[in-house]
């Protein structure tokens, strides 16, 4: 889209203010959500604790389906935070976008490929780290030539396609959703009241669908992260 972003160069690094601010807002929202749900932890759970435990059970289910032998419990926290962070990030831009003087400051952080690539990188780095930790570096390298050696180039290529598909799937879905929201918004403004009235239900429908897509993509991202990690931790 034609959004303009403010950039800050600091210590030779380039910061996109919109990305960072949105990610920060999403992280704070996740923390507020989880913090407020975990105030009274008791043996007999209250409403808030039930919600929190339901979410934990949900992400634990994702982890367990990727690690059927139950060895994935150390990734439960990662899956939980990842899922909530991506979910809140996806919904953030649907709820509000802040533009000041034509510069976007708050939006869905996942509408930017850099953000999704960072998250995918975290997942894949975890996968490689735990693979090396489990097998040792030699076996980790030889795992690329499994099950048969001529698959080596395909396995190497797969690492990159995994990274790209994991990050760009999330980015594409959320970005397309917001592009379409913006398009419907411009349609609403194009012919005055008539188009406005027509566009409102369409916008509502697409917003609801985007909430759905955001949830699905958060689920898909978390599931695939866990699958990649578990695949790196077994000999094929």
């Amino acid at each position, binding site marked *: 889209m034609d959004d303009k972003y403010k950039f800050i160069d600091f210590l030779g690094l380039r910061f996109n203010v919109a990305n960072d601010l949105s990610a920060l807002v999403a992280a704070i929202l996740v923390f507020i959500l989880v913090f407020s749900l975990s105030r009274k932890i008791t043996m007999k759970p209250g409403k808030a604790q039930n919600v929190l435990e339901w979410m934990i059970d949900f992400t634990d289910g994702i982890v367990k389906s990727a690690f059927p032998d139950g060895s994935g419990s150390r990734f439960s926290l*990662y899956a939980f935070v990842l899922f909530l962070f991506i979910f809140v990030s996806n919904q953030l831009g649907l709820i509000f976008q802040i533009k000041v003087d034509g510069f976007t400051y708050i939006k869905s952080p996942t509408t930017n490929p850099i953000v999704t690539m960072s998250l995918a990188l975290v997942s894949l780095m975890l996968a490689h780290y735990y693979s090396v930790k489990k097998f040792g570096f030699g076996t980790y390298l030889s795992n690329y030539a499994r099950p048969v050696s001529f698959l080596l180039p395909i396995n190497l290529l797969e690492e990159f396609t995994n990274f790209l598909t994991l990050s760009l799937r999330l980015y594409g879905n959320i970005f397309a959703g917001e592009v379409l929201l913006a398009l419907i918004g411009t349609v609403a403004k194009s012919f005055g009241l008539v188009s406005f009235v027509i566009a409102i239900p369409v916008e509502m429908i697409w917003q609801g669908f985007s909430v759905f897509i955001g949830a699905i993509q958060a689920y898909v991202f978390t599931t695939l992260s866990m699958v990649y990690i578990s695949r790196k931790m077994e000999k094929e």
Partner: protein
Amino acid sequence: MASLLVLGAGKLALGDMLFILISFILLSLAVKHYAWGPVTKMMDARSEKISGDLDYADQERARADKLSKEREEALKNSRAEAIEIVNKAKDNGDSQKKAIVADAHSEAENVRTKAKQDAEKAKQDAMQDAQDDIANLSLEIASKVISKELNADDQKSLIDSYIKELTVNNETK
């Protein structure tokens, strides 16, 4: 997207990556400290408690089963015992009754026979007395009548024989 990656004036948006990474790690730590840790701990404690409670319930049920079985057994035993006691008492009573009745019978028999014997004896005594009296009387009469000194003993035996005939005749009559 390509512009985002390339157009950073020759700079990759590494800052964003770092920022996301750091904020994600901080978020994870905060979530772990404030929510994940306590909640998962409580969930583990709860599952432990539930399994413990289930085990305890199983044990208690087994114990209750055992107790009720024992009680039933004891009840059955006590019923059998009670029946036995009642039967015994009945038997005892019966035998005692029989013994008492038999005793009473035999005593009554004894009394009767004794009474009979007594009566017989009395009768015989009376008869004897009467015989003696009659003998003496008739002796006296005879001595007076015949005035002949008779041996008293001969006389007596003679009279006895008369009297016997007499009584025999009387009885046949």
